[in-house]
């Protein structure tokens, strides 16, 4: 059998038998870690919300700042990254006719590295040696083992990424002249961003380790911050690109429609990959050490990411309208009613998309210099990312879970679970509306983020924030119920739902779809452009902060 035939054969086996059992175990294992992180991170989030509202005192052996550091790392880093790897490895297995044995092994090694990393990080936080937040800005100095844990996490991510590249390259070799399947294209984009986005933070952490062991006396604070945000911002777009992969590929199929233009979808992926890394500077708009002109240039860098998102907004509603009209929706908005609102696999990602309208708009507002100065480091920012990550990304991930988990565990998604899923989605949405809404409002008034409950000596301004903070606690309480429900649903679909076959939904293209141009497959070109944009954005500002006098370590918690 030559290779091409062998691949067709493989594909038929996949069709007949469903998912490759070994690939499924790998992806499910990632998802188990992901939902465990959601559970623990969620509980810590509730404790924090209650403290912040002044309703609850955290014990000194696990104080507010420890709780917050663990909450941020578990949800922003562990939940999202393990979910993305589990999901995309399943997607590669499904669309490329199974993972190569070598790649599956790399997946396991990546998993091992990430678990070791999480254990190191969690242990140092629990021991009270790393209350430094997920941003770990020096010269606050955590235990060296905290940073070593981060290295393991990053190495795990890289191994997973290179595994994906090997699988995609293998497929391309055997399918000369063909476009890689759209979902595999998204996976490639996400893993390219993960690799390039984490280079900055890897360099940062590697300079922090000798400093944390005391082998090096001082650290360059501004350089560390800048390298951190070159990663921090990319990570945001990695979640976002992961989420929209399901919007473009799975959601149209779930609602009984066809995909939006394959060519434009690939263009969106390429634009996001190229444009996003220099966006990191919008986290440093009120920092010293970066000139006013560079800050202005970076407003452009940040805003340019809005362009592919506008394309996505159009694409989604175009698909919804087309599908609704085909189902007999009449008039200007009749198609809207024809959408499957009772199907949580649609409802959850739909709310996720809807939340991105205010989420994206808030992002565009706060990336403009002067507006940023109003809200920087206030609870507004926390509200912003609870809307974008907490709703847009998380609800899409939940929406994926309803079909991905039973597909992997060879079980059925039952009407009962659908009903529970709808309740979960509503609770989550209402909880986040309370939480993100009150955070946005009180942030505009000046209430700071990352601060345990305080009235600043009963200052009138601070006292006026209290009523808003109560809504934050109400939101947090609804959210913990939603977290518990979601974890129950995930566990049920993994181990207890009735046996059966669940489809991996992949939308077909319209019959008259425009074919994607050849250059969309030229990843080398995309990466060169990415590096060029990163160089344009970073080289001069970094040179300007290279010789800032260093800081000795401080442990202030």
């Amino acid at each position, binding site marked *: 059998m030559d290779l091409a035939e062998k691949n067709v054969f493989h594909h038929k086996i996949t069709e007949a038998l469903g998912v490759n059992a070994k690939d499924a175990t790998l992806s499910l294992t990632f998802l188990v870690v992901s939902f465990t992180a959601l559970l623990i991170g969620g509980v810590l989030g509730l404790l924090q919300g209650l403290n912040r509202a002044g309703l609850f005192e955290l014990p000194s052996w696990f104080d507010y700042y420890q709780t917050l550091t663990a909450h941020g790392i578990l949800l922003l880093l562990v939940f999202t990254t393990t979910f993305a790897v589990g999901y995309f490895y399943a997607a590669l297995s499904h669309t490329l006719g199974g993972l190569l044995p070598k790649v599956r092994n790399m997946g396991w090694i990546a998993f091992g590295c990430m678990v070791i990393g999480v254990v190191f990080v969690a242990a140092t936080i629990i021991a009270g040696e790393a209350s430094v937040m997920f941003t770990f800005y020096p*010269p606050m100095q955590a235990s060296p083992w905290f940073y070593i844990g981060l290295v393991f996490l990053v190495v795990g991510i890289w191994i997973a990424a290179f595994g994906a590249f090997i699988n995609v390259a293998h497929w391309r070799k055997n399918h000369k002249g063909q476009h890689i399947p759209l979902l595999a294209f998204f996976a490639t984009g996400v893993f390219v961003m993960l690799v390039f986005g984490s280079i900055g933070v890897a360099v940062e952490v590697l300079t922090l380790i000798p400093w944390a062991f005391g082998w090096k006396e001082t650290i360059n604070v501004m350089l560390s911050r800048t390298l951190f945000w070159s990663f921090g911002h990319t990570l945001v777009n990695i979640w976002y690109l992961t989420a929209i992969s399901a919007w473009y590929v799975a959601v149209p199929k779930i609602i009984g429609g066809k995909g939006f233009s394959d060519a434009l979808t690939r263009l969106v992926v390429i634009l996001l990959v190229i444009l996003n890394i220099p966006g990191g500077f919008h986290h440093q708009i009120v920092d*010293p050490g970066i000139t006013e002109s560079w800050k202005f240039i970076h407003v452009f860098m940040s805003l340019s990411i809005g362009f592919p998102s506008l394309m996505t907004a159009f694409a989604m509603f175009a698909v919804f309208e087309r599908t609704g009209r085909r189902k007999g929706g009449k008039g200007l908005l009749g198609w809207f009613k024809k959408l499957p609102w009772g199907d949580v696999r649609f409802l959850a990602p739909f709310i996720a998309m809807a939340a991105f309208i205010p989420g994206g708009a808030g992002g565009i507002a706060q990336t403009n210099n002067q507006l940023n*100065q109003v809200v920087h480091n206030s609870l507004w920012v926390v509200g912003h990312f609870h809307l974008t990550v907490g709703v847009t990304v998380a609800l899409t991930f939940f929406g994926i879970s309803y079909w991905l988990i039973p597909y992997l565990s060879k079980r059925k998604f039952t009407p009962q679970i659908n009903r529970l899923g709808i309740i979960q989605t509503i609770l989550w949405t209402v909880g986040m509306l309370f939480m993100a809404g009150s955070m946005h409002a009180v942030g505009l008034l*000046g209430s700071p983020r*990352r601060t345990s409950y305080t009235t600043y000596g009963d200052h009138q301004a601070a006292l006026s924030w209290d009523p808003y903070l109560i809504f934050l606690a109400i939101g947090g309480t609804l959210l913990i119920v939603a977290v518990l429900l979601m974890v129950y649903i995930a566990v049920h679909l993994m181990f207890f739902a009735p046996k059966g076959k669940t489809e991996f939904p992949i939308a077909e293209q319209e019959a008259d779809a425009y074919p994607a141009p050849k250059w969309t497959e030229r990843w080398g070109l995309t990466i060169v452009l990415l590096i060029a944009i990163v160089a344009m954005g970073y080289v001069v500002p970094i040179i300007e902060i290279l010789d800032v*006098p260093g800081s000795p370590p401080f442990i202030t918690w």
Partner: protein
Amino acid sequence: MKLHRAEEIWLIVGVGIIILAMVFTGYQAFAHGMAPPSGMETLDPQKVDETAPFDNPGIFEVGADEYEVVMTLEAFRFNPNEIEIPAGSEVHFTMTSKDVVHGIQVIGTNINAMVTPGHVQRISQKFDTPGEYLVICNEYCGIGHQMMAMTIVVK
């Protein structure tokens, strides 16, 4: 790649809004001097107490209704930690950190800046309305971060 006519219009309007935002931001920053605080001078964070002007923190009258506040930030206090000025004063803050990264925000004004060790950060504000302004540290700086605050009294 072919775009639908409606999508073209949508994207043109979207890009228009983005460009308008850019133009506004640039106009305010460079024509009105409202650029974000971007202090570029550096100093040795281990020698703040010996480096001018931080060897003598305080409030200095530098002109008619114009003051300079030389301020150091450290876990968990501002120095000076009490400022009193007459209404209508223009105040120029010159700040640095003696230890970790801090942030200064004056509630009810546009003062919001990161203060990092190794850099001198500058920001100016005109205080027209009398009152007691709450000044807080808005970057997590340690276990006492929620206590790091002071007031500016405008009379």
